[in-house]
């Protein structure tokens, strides 16, 4: 049976209503381990895991120094760069958190 444009529009509207709400926010926090390394932890405001989320350590000229992913415990550790750096926790469009090296305690 061929569907009319109106039927397809109705189906699309129904599917949109079924789409789960996506009100969660990305969260990332980093701390200095005191041994020359930094650990970053990620998560979401709804408690979802951040395992597999991309994380990058970037220098002051936007060159990627370290390219990695959050591990199964939503953590990522790296050796602290000598130069100025920031961290990009990249969970996709509108789900990006940036942390500057000087803010890490």
């Amino acid at each position, binding site marked *: 049976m061929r569907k009319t444009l109106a039927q397809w529009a109705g189906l699309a509207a129904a599917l949109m209503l079924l789409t789960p709400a996506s009100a969660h926010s990305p969260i990332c*926090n980093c*701390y200095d381990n005191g041994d020359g390394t930094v650990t970053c*932890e990620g*998560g979401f*405001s*709804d408690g979802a895991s951040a395992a597999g989320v991309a994380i990058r350590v970037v220098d002051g000229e936007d060159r990627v120094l370290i390219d990695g992913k959050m591990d199964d415990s*939503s953590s990522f550790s790296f050796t602290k760069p000598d130069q100025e750096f920031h961290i990009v926790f990249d969970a996709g469009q509108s789900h990006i958190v940036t942390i500057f090296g000087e803010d890490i305690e």
Partner: protein
Amino acid sequence: MRTAAFRSVHGVLWAGLGIALGAAGPARAHFQVLYTAETALDSGRAMHVMMLFTHPGHGGPSMDMGQPEGFYVVSQRGEEAAPVKTDLMQYLEPVRWHAEQGQAQAYQADLPRTLARSLGDYVFVLEPAPFYESGEDKYIQQFTKMLVNVGGVPGNWGAAVGLPAEILPLDKPYANWTGGVFRGVVVASGRPVPNAELEVEYLNYALDLEGHRFASEPEVQYPQGSFGTLSIKANDRGEFVIGLARAGWWGICALTVGTDTEHEGKPLSQDAVLWIQVKDMR
């Protein structure tokens, strides 16, 4: 229902005060306080925790605590992670809490940042020693929880620790607006307690954590004795709701819900206490 009329332990000074206040003195509830200044943290930090057995709605009297049987935190980062239990007994430090009627044995703990620097929920638990209440010739043991969150990532805030008497939150204890409500379930060893009796008190006198005493002036004046300790009942599923009329700390205590009913040959009341922090929307 337990009120000060039955639980009075205050001795001559407080008896005298009671006479001065009149025959219809305000109801007061024993509460195990488990306090830290801030429960919703942007990032992990060192924490100062105060433990005090008192009547928070009235700024005392305070009672001597025995050496706690347990003090620990159960933390969890994210809802899918496994909870981690960390013993905190090594951080307990006895202190004397000053009060009008004298001093009371209390405890404090300075917890290093490394204990709570990860994102997630931290369920602090105090299992106090049973307290002998001479006015009732019985023991009281209040299993007490206080929750802290780091960074806004939720974890185990609604999960049971598995205490003999416990309040399970249905709302996050660290994220409450003034004027909202807080819901919970009273459980004993994991099973809901139908029609449980609860007492609710506002921490009406600020804690002076340096001087180890209450502030001299209350936050609010009670219009009548019924308001200092709010007595409510859970429904037939053990659920309850309270309104949050003011920012600050609210203590919720479910009375005599634990299954152990005797200690050293005397009646034992195993209570469940939960503390929640409330903030103004501004």
